[in-house]
């Protein structure tokens, strides 16, 4: 799919307008306080100045996000399969899954640091906790929403339970799974940054973007802080693009959500 000019130029104009507003806003702030909003070119310069730290922090956060995200996908898929097989198990576990989702991650960070140690292990677990819920809920919903007639068809052809799961329930649940995956994909980098912010560890260059914001904040390096935030955005974009690409690969040939429109 080639991006069309008609979708590119509005975004370009909006981007240019945003930068202009940024400069304009800064010009209106009194010189005594304008350090609060560094101009775009200073933020760009900060990218160059702190490139080593930013790259290493982005890499560490990316690894934590990817590990937590992957772990969540595997565990959520297995749990969703279990939940879909039995109403009893579903009724028994659902309230606790809901409770897990209500858990304030920031508050349990200190517990995780004590249990797993600061740095990557804690960041991975926090990312896992944040990604897990939308994946389980969506995948389970997909696995129990299979077309009743198709289930009957499999029954009439005397399919085994295993054939029904592999050839019917799992593929039919894919669109739901990818809905969960898209949500988890946007949450993973945020989860890793929040995790790093509250349970990070800079020992041995292990710090991520969250930890870096703590350091730059303490040093009042506003331009570097902005650059750190933007790095987080880029990381998030990479995640979302990867998940969208994967979803397109698996669904575009057959699923109605990828139906080509005429306009």
């Amino acid at each position: 799919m080639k991006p069309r000019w008609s979708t590119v130029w509005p975004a370009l104009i909006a981007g240019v307008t945003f930068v202009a507003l940024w400069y304009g806003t800064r010009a209106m702030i009194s010189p005594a306080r304008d350090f609060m909003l560094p101009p775009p070119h200073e933020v760009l310069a900060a990218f160059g100045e702190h490139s080593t730290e930013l790259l290493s922090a982005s890499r560490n956060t990316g690894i934590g996000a990817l590990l937590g995200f992957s772990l969540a996908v595997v565990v959520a898929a297995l749990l969703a399969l279990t939940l879909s097989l039995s109403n009893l198990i579903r009724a028994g576990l659902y309230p606790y899954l809901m409770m897990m989702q209500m858990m304030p991650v920031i508050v349990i960070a200190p517990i995780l640091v004590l249990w797993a140690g600061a740095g990557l292990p804690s960041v991975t677990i926090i990312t896992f906790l944040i990604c897990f819920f939308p994946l389980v809920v969506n995948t389970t919903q997909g696995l129990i929403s299979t077309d009743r007639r198709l289930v009957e068809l499999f029954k009439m052809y005397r399919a085994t339970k295993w054939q029904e799961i592999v050839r019917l329930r799992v593929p039919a649940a894919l669109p739901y799974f990818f809905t969960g995956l898209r949500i988890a994909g946007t949450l993973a980098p945020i989860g890793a940054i929040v995790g790093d912010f509250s349970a990070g560890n800079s020992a041995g260059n292990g710090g991520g973007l969250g930890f870096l914001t703590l350091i730059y904040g303490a040093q009042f390096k506003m331009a570097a802080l902005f650059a750190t935030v933007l790095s987080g955005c880029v990381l998030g974009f990479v995640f979302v693009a990867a998940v969208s690409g994967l979803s397109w690969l698996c669904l575009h040939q057959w699923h109605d959500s990828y139906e080509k429109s005429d306009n």
Partner: protein
Amino acid sequence: MSEVTASACSVQFDAVVKKFGDGPTVLQDINFIANDGDFVAIIGPSGCGKSTLLRLLAGLVPITAGQVKIDGAAPGPESPELAYVFQEPTLLAWQRVAANVELPLVLRKVPANERAAIVHRCLSQVRLSDRADAFPRQLSGGQQMRVSIARALAIEPQLLLLDEPFGALDEMTRNHLNEELLALREEAAWTAFFVTHSVAEAVFLANRVVIMSANPGRIAHEVAIDLPYPRTQATREDSTFQQLVAQVSSLLRSVEEETT
């Protein structure tokens, strides 16, 4: 192409009663015998249990009282091959046309080298050989229904159960598919139960039309259709055909008036 060796089968309903839980009686005292190769059309007002009758035969719902026998025995794993065609095509959206037709063979663990030949034959029977690699959503409603029929034929069924298969299609497509279905019947032997809301379709396809009444569902009338096969477009213009359509229509009307 191998000769089709499977034969049709007989079906016997013996004082069959169906209730869902404590609800009203859906089917009451159904007695009916379909002989080898019969094409039975079932017609009746909504809620008369037409579909339930097919679902009982397919073993999808249990019988409350009475007996169903296929070739003289209760339905079970040893029963003659049975295929069911739903009102909707009910295809696997993520599988191409050929794989959809192949599905029952895969589930039955038919060896791969045999499967390809069967799929090829069934697709050419419904004139869709050139769409083997398409996904269902790329086909029209009529084409999807033909894939569904090809899938049903793949296991060489002796009993074919069709639950308003062409109900959602326009009349032209429906007439075409009716003729194709009868042409397929010339090539293989099966006994068919065909539920429909269209009197003309019932008379065109069947050698026996069963008219059911509702509350509770019972067999009210049966009309023998003594028109010779093969039937074609010319059959629809035949005066005997039109008289039979009028006769079945008036019986259906009388049944509907009784019900309301």
